[in-house]
C-alpha cells in the first residue's frame, strides 16, 4: 500500500436529489469529508437509507455534485470516466448478450475491444470462474454467477478506481460467503487490478471488515463521516480470519457505531443476534 497518496479526496461534499415535482432538494450527504489512499480497499457502512449508494453513484459520475470537493487524482469528478468502474447492485447484465458480450461491453464502448481486449476478457472469465461460460446467456446464470460477470465487466477496463455497490446484498447467505472469499481471491490474484483502489458499499459489517483495509462509517442521512476504522488484519485473508478475536473486536466496534446511528442512541438489545445492520 502506498501510503500518504490520496487517490480520492472527499471534502465538505454535499449531494442530493432535486424533486421533479416540487423542486425540493433532498440532501443525501452533507459535510462529508474523507480520503481514500492509493491502493486502498475501503468499505463504507452505515444505516439503511443513509446515502451510501447516493455517494457511490456520485463517484461513478451518474449524479452531479451539489457542492464540495470530490476529486480523483486531483481532478474534480464531473460525469462518468474511463478511470472508474461500477459493480452494480443488481448485476444489470444485458440479457441479449452472452457472458463474453457483457464483459466486452465496456471495451466496445471505449473502442478497446481488439485482440488484447479479447484476451483480457478470456483471462478475466477464467479468473472469476466462468471460463467455460462465455457463450452462456444471463437468464441461465445464478445470482452469484451474474455478480461474477458484473465484477469481470468492471475489471475489464483496468480502472483506477473500482466502485462496488452492495454487490452481494441480494445473494443468499452461502453464496454471499463464497463471493466474499472470491472477491478477495480475485483482488489478490488479478495482476492488473491488485494494487488498485476500491470503494465497497455494504450494510453487512462483517463483510466490510473481511474485505477492507479500512471501514468508513456513515451517519444517518444526510450522511457525514462518523469514524474511519482501520482493519489491521493481514493479507491474504481467508474465511478463517472471521473467527479471530481481532476480527470480532473490530466488527463489534463498528456495529456499535452503526447501531448508535440507526437507533440514534437508543441501544437495541437485540443487535447481538444479527450481523447485518438493517436486519
Amino acid at each position, binding site marked *: 500500500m502506498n501510503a500518504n497518496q490520496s487517490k480520492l479526496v472527499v471534502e465538505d461534499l454535499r449531494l442530493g436529489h432535486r424533486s421533479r415535482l416540487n423542486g425540493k432538494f433532498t440532501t443525501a450527504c452533507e459535510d462529508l469529508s474523507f480520503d481514500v489512499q492509493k491502493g486502498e480497499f475501503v468499505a463504507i457502512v452505515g444505516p439503511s437509507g443513509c446515502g451510501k449508494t447516493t455517494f457511490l453513484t456520485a463517484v461513478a459520475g*451518474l449524479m452531479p455534485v451539489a457542492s464540495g470537493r470530490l476529486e480523483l487524482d486531483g481532478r474534480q469528478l464531473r460525469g462518468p470516466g474511463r478511470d472508474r468502474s*461500477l459493480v452494480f447492485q443488481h448485476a444489470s447484465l444485458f440479457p*441479449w448478450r452472452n457472458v463474453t458480450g457483457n464483459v466486452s461491453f465496456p471495451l466496445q*464502448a*471505449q473502442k478497446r475491444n481488439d485482440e488484447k481486449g479479447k484476451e483480457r476478457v478470456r483471462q478475466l472469465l477464467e479468473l472469476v470462474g466462468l471460463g467455460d461460460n462465455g*457463450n452462456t*446467456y444471463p*437468464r*441461465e*446464470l445464478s445470482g452469484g454467477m451474474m455478480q461474477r460477470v458484473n465484477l469481470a465487466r468492471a475489471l475489464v477496463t483496468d480502472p483506477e478506481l473500482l466502485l462496488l455497490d452492495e454487490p452481494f446484498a441480494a445473494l443468499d447467505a452461502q453464496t454471499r460467503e463464497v463471493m466474499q472469499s472470491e472477491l478477495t481471491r480475485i483482488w489478490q490474484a488479478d495482476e492488473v487490478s491488485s494494487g488498485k483502489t476500491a470503494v465497497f458499499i455494504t450494510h453487512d459489517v462483517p463483510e466490510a471488515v473481511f474485505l477492507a483495509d479500512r471501514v468508513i462509517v456513515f451517519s444517518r442521512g444526510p450522511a457525514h463521516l462518523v469514524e474511519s476504522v482501520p482493519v489491521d488484519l493481514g493479507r491474504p485473508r481467508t474465511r478463517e480470519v472471521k473467527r479471530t478475536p481481532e476480527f470480532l473486536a473490530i466488527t463489534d466496534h463498528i456495529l456499535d457505531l452503526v447501531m448508535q446511528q440507526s437507533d440514534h442512541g437508543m441501544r437495541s438489545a437485540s443487535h447481538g443476534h444479527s450481523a447485518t445492520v438493517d436486519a
Partner: protein
Amino acid sequence: MAIAQLSTPSSGTSVQERTPAAQRAPRRHEHVMLGLLGLAAVFGAWQLCTSVGIVDPTFSSSPVGLFGALVDFITSGEIWKPLSSTLTTVAWGIGLSLVVGIPLGLVIGRSRVLFGLTEPLISIMYAVPYVVFLPVIIFWFGIDQQARIVIVIWAAIFPLLINVVAGSRNLDISYLHVAHVYCASRFLTMRAVALPATSPYILAGVRQAVGRGLVGAIVAELFMGSAGMGYLVQKQTSNFQMDEAMAAIAVIAVVAIALTRAVAYFERRFTSWSTST
C-alpha cells in the same frame, strides 16, 4: 450444481431453444394436421354445395374452379404483375415505416416533452380507421403507386410507433446506467442498448404494422383501381369471373400468411433472450 446444468454444448443453438421445441414437436405436428383437416372440411362442404346445386358456382365459385383459375394464373404468368405490384407497395410502405418509425419511437420514448407533445396525436391517428383518409390521400397524391405506399405507411406507422414508444419508455434505467458508466457514446447506447432492450416491443409493433400495412395496400388497390391484387379481385368480380377472383384472394391469403410467419420468425430469432424458460 448450477455449473452442471449450464454446461451447454458449444454448438450454435443453446439448449433452451432446442429442448422445448423437441418436446412440442409431436403436439405441433398434431396441431398442423388438425388445421389442415379443418380447411379440408370447409373446402369439401363448399365443393359439395356447388356440386349438388345448393349454391350457384356463378356467384360463389367453387374449390375446383378456384384451383383451376389459380393454375391458369400461374402458368399464364398473369398473376405476377399484380402480385409484384402489391408486394412492392407493401415492401416500400413497411420499409419506410420501419426506417422512420423505429428511431422516431425510440427518441420520443426517451423525451418527456416529445412524448407529451406526440402522445395524443399518435393515439388519435391509431384509433381513427385509416381508410377514411383514402379520399384525402387520393386528392393529395393521386392513384399511382406513390399514393398506395402512402396509405400503407399511414396504416402501418402508428401501431409501430405506439409499441416502440412504449418499449422505449419502459427501458430499464439500469441498462442506461451501465452504458453511461462505461462511457458508451450516444450512438452505441442507442444501437447496442436501447434497440435490443426494446426489440420485443419493436417486433410486436412490426407484427401489427405488417398486418395493417397489407390491409392498407389491398384496400388502396380496391379503392384506387389501377393495379395490384386488390384491383385484380375487384376487376374479376365485376366481370363475373368468380373463379379468378377467388384464386386472387387465395394468393393474397398466402402472402398474408408468409408475412406473418416471417415476422414471427424474427420475433423468435431476436427476442429469445426475453422469454423466460
